[in-house]
């Protein structure tokens, strides 16, 4: 948490503010695991931590024995006596050869940290293990003092938040307006804005449980699964292509459909986990359970020319280990690829024990799908008769054209009878790669690259129009065949080798430097010692085979079951933290990707443990916990912030107000489509290709991939279904996970490039244009029309000052477009959606511009 860079120092000041707000006054007891351990970890563990290879003076401070050891009459920590504790003497020393950390270390202690360490020793040096490695026990929600605050408590989440606010002498914000509330919760649960009718119904519903009924309606909506699938796709690094050179297409959308369906069906999170990690290993596994294992085939795949297959295979296993650790352990395993973790109790051996579990799959590392297909075996065949027929038709057609080409080449490239094209002296003189890729290759086996090189040559350099046209036909046929072959629904899944592959620790993680240390599948040793606390019962623990972590080797199913067993202290905490992050903008643990020693301590540790244990007690019921969060009084607060509160808690970690931040870019697009009534609710299926500026794929792939935009309803499907080319993702989505490696927290930035998207992207301009049509049809008067459009986007009516500005703008726009009707006609024609001929183009353009302005209101862009 603390570092030498000024950036971190400011973060530190924020944390100190937070800590002081959280009442860490001098009189308060010091919490070892939250206040002391992080300092030791950051400042000392690099040389005195778990990594035996880097350890200095044989001293390790991450374990009790080392921290309190006496050696040569020198004791590191003497409880109650800082003046004789070597640890304290060293950190306050003025001698360059004594002081710790050493003066040349990039990490130096701050005076506040030294004081905290001194106070900790003086107060008895209570020791404990890192909080996240202890199994959570369900705390009793704290008592909130009587009165108004107590009356605002709606469920057990609130006392945890309110008690902390009371300590900080803050009060929660009043409840948000109903309009703001329904807009907030509808986005959070479905990723879409509420319709005007839904807003009206809620405003008119005077029932005491009106809000809860809205929540239940949203949880039951099929849109719920689509909204939450997005976050899961980000961490599963889902894309429709492999990445790297050539970036070939793959068919993983059936797995995406599986995720949406599982979320909608509220598949308990433990089953959701087990099926995705090891569905194929379940007894009598169903097709859907095998399909679920596509989770760990979503990683990138490097089929670059000259690539060593084993190197690719090993990297893919690394990715699976590290993704698993991030998602279910909140642990950063990457360091341990090469050496024992510097800060966390994860050894290189632990790393390779997990590696062994994922090392038993039949993937070879070479692109086995054939041709340009991105499908790498093993795969689940989900093809249809129609698809298989299309492959045959296109292959037959290719053969037929290839015969024609070869016949032509008999005269084009003269050579003695019975000899091949390559034996023609004319063919040997061809430029570049053509002697090999064209002349030496049978016509029916020529690749796209070769033909792309040959066609311009015979078109311009050495013109032969007839031959060029023939090659063009061949190219079209090859592409048609490839498209058909790639279009066959085969989904990449996991499998298990019949014969185990031995795993050796790789020196520095290098695929070709096997050490002689053989490792078999096991859970990380630190957790193997963790025993479940009796107070954490699992709702369906009875039907789960007990995991004996001491008996190697474990396979994927064992690992999956262990991850969601009471023996893993992290899975429920990490999952609940991600949900909290989605609703409130920041997790209770801000470092959602890391719960280790170097993580930021939780803002509300008891609440996190309460949620984690409640989650398990309720049978890993995701919807139930989502419901609990959004029906809390904490969530329902207004997000208005006073200057003093903003100053005091800029990041809203104490939650004295509701969440307010820009919506994810994919929701902005969905909102625009929904507001204009363009959104097509069709769920599932292949990815779609909506508007995209010309040339993006071509530029990234040297013209080898052409973006062929879809039309009609495919333009208006939800963002979740937009085709994701891994090397250049859809440009409409900014601040989105790159879908290259596991991402559990996306950035939220504020740049001019984002403004250009929502101002100028055809998707947004067309939506403004169609919303203008709807608006002008919905009402007659200028004021009523304005009210309509404003309300569709913000769920409220404009205030008087807002109305004055907007009506004034309408008048000015009308003058501008009346003076330039040609421009009006152009603007009124953006996009492919129909427009009523009866609508005056000037009036249409005026309202299009106004709706575009409304799309860019900060309030429209934000969850408020």
């Amino acid at each position, binding site marked *: 948490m603390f570092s030498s860079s000024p950036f971190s120092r400011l973060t530190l000041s924020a944390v100190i503010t937070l800590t002081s707000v959280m009442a860490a006054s001098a009189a308060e007891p010091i919490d070892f695991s939250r206040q002391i351990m992080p300092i030791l970890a950051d400042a000392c563990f690099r040389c005195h931590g778990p990594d035996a290879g880097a350890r200095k003076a044989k001293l390790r401070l991450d374990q009790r024995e080392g921290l309190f050891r006496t050696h040569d009459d020198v004791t590191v920590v003497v409880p109650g006596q800082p003046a004789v504790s070597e640890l304290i003497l060293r950190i306050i020393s003025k001698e360059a050869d004594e002081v710790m950390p050493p003066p040349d270390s990039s990490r130096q202690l701050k005076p506040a940290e030294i004081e905290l360490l001194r106070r900790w020793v003086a107060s008895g040096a209570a020791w404990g293990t890192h909080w996240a490695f202890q199994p959570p026990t369900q705390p009793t929600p704290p008592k909130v003092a009587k009165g108004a605050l107590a009356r605002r408590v709606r469920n057990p989440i609130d006392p945890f938040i309110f008690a902390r606010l009371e300590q900080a002498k803050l009060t929660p914000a009043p409840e948000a307006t109903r309009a703001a509330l329904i807009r907030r919760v509808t986005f959070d649960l479905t990723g879409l804005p509420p319709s005007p009718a839904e807003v009206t119904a809620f405003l008119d519903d005077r029932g005491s449980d009106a809000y809860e009924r809205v929540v239940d309606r949203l949880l039951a909506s099929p849109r719920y699964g689509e909204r939450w699938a997005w976050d899961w796709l980000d961490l599963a690094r889902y894309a429709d292509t492999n990445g790297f050179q050539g970036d070939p297409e793959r068919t993983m959308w059936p797995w995406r459909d599986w995720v949406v369906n599982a979320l909608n069906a509220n598949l308990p999170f433990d089953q959701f986990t087990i099926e995705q990690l090891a569905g194929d290993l379940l007894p009598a596994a169903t097709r859907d359970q095998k399909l679920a294992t596509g989770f760990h085939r979503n990683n990138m795949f490097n089929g670059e020319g000259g690539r*060593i297959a084993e190197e690719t295979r090993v990297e893919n296993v690394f990715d699976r280990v590290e993704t698993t650790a991030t998602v279910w352990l909140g642990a950063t395993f990457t360091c341990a690829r090469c050496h024992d973790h510097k800060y966390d109790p994860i050894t290189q051996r632990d790393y390779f024990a997990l590696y062994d579990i994922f090392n038993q799959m039949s993937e070879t590392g070479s692109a086995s799908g054939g041709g340009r297909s991105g499908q790498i075996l093993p795969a689940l065949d989900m093809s249809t008769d129609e698809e298989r027929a299309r492959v045959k038709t296109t292959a037959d057609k290719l053969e037929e054209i290839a015969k024609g080409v070869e016949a032509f080449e008999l005269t084009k490239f003269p050579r003695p009878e019975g000899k091949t094209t390559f034996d023609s002296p004319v063919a040997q003189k061809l430029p*570049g790669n053509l002697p090999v890729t064209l002349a030496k290759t049978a016509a029916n086996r020529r690749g796209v690259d070769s033909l792309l090189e040959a066609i311009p040559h015979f078109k311009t350099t050495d013109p032969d129009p007839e031959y060029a046209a023939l090659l063009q036909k061949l190219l079209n046929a090859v592409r048609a065949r490839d498209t058909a072959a790639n279009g066959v629904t085969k989904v990449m899944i996991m499998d298990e080798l019949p014969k185990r592959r031995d795993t050796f620790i790789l020196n520095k993680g290098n695929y070709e430097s096997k050490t002689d240390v053989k490792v078999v599948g096991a859970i990380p040793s630190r957790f193997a010692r963790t025993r479940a606390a009796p107070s954490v019962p699992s709702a369906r623990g009875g039907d789960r085979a007990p995991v004996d972590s001491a008996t190697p080797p474990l396979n994927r199913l064992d690992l999956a079951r262990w991850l969601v067993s009471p023996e893993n202290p992290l899975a429920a905490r990490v999952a609940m933290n991600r949900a909290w992050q989605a609703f409130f903008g920041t997790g209770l643990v801000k470092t959602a990707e890391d719960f280790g020693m170097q993580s930021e301590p939780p803002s509300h540790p008891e609440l996190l443990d309460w949620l984690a244990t409640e989650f398990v007690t309720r049978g890993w019921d995701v919807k139930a916990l989502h419901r609990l969060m959004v029906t809390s009084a904490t969530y329902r607060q207004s997000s208005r912030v006073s200057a003093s509160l903003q100053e005091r808690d800029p990041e809203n970690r104490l939650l004295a107000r509701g969440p307010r931040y820009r919506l994810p870019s994919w929701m902005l697009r969905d909102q625009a489509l929904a507001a204009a009534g363009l959104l097509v609710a069709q769920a599932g299926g292949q990815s779609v290709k909506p508007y995209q500026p010309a040339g993006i794929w071509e530029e990234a792939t040297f013209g080898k991939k052409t973006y062929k935009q879809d039309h009609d309803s495919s333009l208006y499907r939800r963002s979740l279904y937009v085709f994701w080319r891994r090397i250049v993702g859809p440009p409409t989505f900014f601040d989105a996970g790159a879908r290259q490696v596991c991402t559990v927290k996306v*950035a939220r930035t504020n740049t001019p490039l984002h403004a250009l*998207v929502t101002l100028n992207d055809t998707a947004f301009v067309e939506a403004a244009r169609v919303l203008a049509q709807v608006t002008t049809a919905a009402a007659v008067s200028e004021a009523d029309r304005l009210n309509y459009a404003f309300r569709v986007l913000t769920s409220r009516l404009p205030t008087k000052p807002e109305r004055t500005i907007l009506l004034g*703008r309408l008048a000015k726009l009308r003058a501008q477009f009346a003076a330039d009707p040609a421009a009006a006609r152009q603007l009124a024609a953006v996009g492919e959606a129909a427009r009523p001929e009866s609508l005056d183009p000037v009036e249409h353009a005026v309202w299009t511009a106004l709706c575009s302005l409304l799309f860019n209101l900060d309030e429209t862009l934000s969850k408020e």
Partner: protein
Amino acid sequence: MDPFLEARALSTRRQFFGRSVMGVGTAALASLLGRGNLVGAAPSAAVKPRGLPGLADLPHFAPKAKRVIYLFQNGAPSHVDLFDYKPKLREWHGKQIPDELTGGRRFSTMTGNQTARPVLAEITKFAQHGKSGAWVSDFLPKIAEISDDLCFVKSMHTEAVNHAPAITYFMTGSEMAGRPSMGAWLSYGLGSETEELPAFVVMTSRDKEASCGQIFYDFYWGSGFLPTKYQGVAFRGAGDPVLYLSNPQGLSREVRRGMLDDLAQLNEIKRADFGDPEIATRIAQYEMAYRMQASVPELTDFSKESPAVLERYGPEVRRQGSFAYNCLMARRLAERGVRFIQVMHAGWDQHRNLNSQLKIQCEDTDAPSAALIRDLKERGLLDDTLVVWGGEFGRTPFLQGKIDDVKQWGRDHHPYAFSIWLAGGGVKPGFTYGATDDFGFNALENRVHVHDLQATILNQLGLNHERLTYKFQGRNYRLTDVHGKVVNAILS
């Protein structure tokens, strides 16, 4: 940057906005942003307003350079045919390269299994140039002419043998994709010197024949775990150089101005009511977007460049997306205060076509690279602009292919030695540093690793590479990982 920091940076703006709810129109925003003229003004020598703020106590020490232009040569130019002249290669031409050089070394699969590894002499003539007597091959006549301005490093080495990881290594300090790139680090640490343009701009080009398929991955200019506003903005080679820059058809700049004026007013009402400082940032960013709509077309308008200057860059300078065009753009971006300009050119991967393609690559890149240096020098910009030219590794001194198949001669990937050059930005001109063995196989003297080069680049910008760090996943990350030494010997 942390939103918390930004809130602080914006507090003066907030105080301004706080005074009145209405009437925050064009003029007010312009004064707020420190500019009287909203429409793409010509660059002036006057103190420029700053865009992205940098870190408070940076630079660590007085910088020699304010900006970097990195001319990255994807695919790996052949050092033994261009800069690292080795007479021994001609002596040994066609003979098996000594086993003690190749034994146990890693090559790509293209020659990894090839047992015959005959030495291949340089494919063209070398000569010494300028007062410094630098060896440059006759494929690069224009670079040869300016060799007294250049600092050659002939002892570069790396670990990666495949393109994408090797390029990622140079750009991000890690072979694995996903770490922040050098330009992102610099934008994060030093901020921006322009409000009209992004701090970090990327441009790409490739050889005309598209003989090799090197792809430009966006992680070559990504921000990794740094906030995405630090990532490079890739100017495209066709159409709008910045995506979505153009207003929709039929929506004029005047109409846009009016819309944005009202948008600012409405957002300000919201800010005054709700107190969220992000709203003030958003108002400013919409204004920046509007400025870029003018400044980017102005930037790409070469009509005021003199014919003599254009001629220097060669005929391709007028073709958007060519290396020549991008080099001229790089100079124009440098003039306008852009911090890190990453120009990438692919086409150097001559596995099978050394005799036909290497010359073409040189023709496409030689004049523009030299023209850029001359232009910068004439304008007094070379002193505080560091230019780097180089690829991700070198090429084997031995042959890939068959010795009697001259047309298909090639060289494979070679990480053990290669050459780059630097210019300006406090680097010694007319200087050569480091040396390889007689075969150009291993870097022997004064070896310079990828991380050393990165440490040196940061050093010239006034940054201690060990202290420019960012905490992520519990670790203080930096561009140079845990390595890197500043190459002091090449600094003037």
